[in-house]
């Protein structure tokens, strides 16, 4: 969370002096109410092709993050 708050601050700082929207929150190219994109990505475990849609059948909480 510390890093998320910092990210917001960094966005504000980065935008200083420009005409961009400095209040824009973190976003992702998915639309509420629409299917999650059927994007094939490698699994961290073994690199096999995987898609978020293969997890259908159960409610899912998806975290998009980095370990730094």
């Amino acid at each position, binding site marked *: *969370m510390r890093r998320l708050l*910092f990210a917001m601050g960094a966005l504000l700082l980065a935008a200083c002096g420009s005409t961009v929207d400095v209040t824009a929150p973190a976003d992702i190219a998915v639309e*509420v109410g629409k299917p999650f994109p059927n994007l*094939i990505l*490698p699994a961290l475990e073994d690199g096999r092709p995987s*898609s978020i849609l293969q997890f259908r059948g159960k409610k*899912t*909480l998806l*975290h*998009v993050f980095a370990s730094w």
Partner: protein
Amino acid sequence: MPGWHDAIKDLYESGELQVVGIIQEQHPDRCRLFMQWKQMGWPILVDSLNLLEVSAVPITVAIDEYGIVREKGLRLDKAEEFRTGFMQAKFEAPAPDDAAAAPAQWPAAVKPADPADPSAWADFADLIVRSNDLDRIDEAIQAYQQALKSQAGNGWLEFRLGVALRKRYDSDGRQEGDFQAAVDHWKAALDIDPNQYIWRRRIQQYGPRLDKPYPFYDWVPQARQEIAARGETPAGLIIEPGGAEFAEPAKVLATMEAPAERPDPGGRIYRDEGEFIALEKVVVPNSIKPGEASRIHVNFRPREEIKAHWNNEVDGLEVWLNEGEGCQLDGSYRSLPNPPEVVSLEERKAEFEIHCAESAAPGPRSLDGYALYYVCEDVRGTCLYRRQDFQVIVEVR
């Protein structure tokens, strides 16, 4: 993530909810170590190219049992609402989607027929990179370059080309200048969209302390220690984090001590013109405004072709770098200790930071440097003490 992990652990353990991650990292294996450390076992997908166009991390998304996005940007302090809202809600099944139902597999990466179709070239390159087909990474790099020919100013292409270049740098197919080129393309992307936080972080990861929001991978030693203390073997890393990735942020340039006299002041030691040790310099970023800082990476790699290796029975590698006008280094001298083995082959890395004053005049700063080291080679069976001179250019805009 650990906060969310604790907040919904019961739902996860009871099977009511599944948790999945998508990571935005250049080196995904580091996340494997992180997950092991935090004892979080959920599946993770890797999106190093940021194909999901994430502007910042972390971001949390709720997806129903039919694959429909129900909420995005969930906040940990609203975890209770997540339980009473999303988790209790009944969602309607949409029309079946055959394409989404098929098992995930990599399509064949076929070079586009039309040289003027940037999307096709980008898709082709993306596929090679995300499927981690390192044998074809040159093709991916060329494909991004091809796409950029007709889409100059496309930050996504610039960023992804940088990812591919850094990937090649970390592979056996490394080409001279790959790391610098990666940084330059990330910088080009960020110049196009300064609010793209993922792009900014990719530079800051390797950049100066003065521009760092936090240490990126300082948790690695602690993670290894705690995992080992549990009796487990810590997940291995393909590329060990370097100095910049461990470094703490700083508000002012912290200078390091240097010897009273620089080594080999008269320049009398015989030169290695790169025959024994390949030297690569990378400046992150290589162009700064007055008042800004760069991190200078100087990497040394024994030449495999002559079976060169470090001689560790004597002194370690020493590096000296001179300052440029109007700019200050965090110290001109670095001394890299030898590992315990008698000989070794590892890449050695010296890092410097340069800060240029607000009053620094625009123009290139040419910093002269040199390294001194003991190196052996197996072809002729010689061990030598050598000096290699180099020059680093930092552009002040």
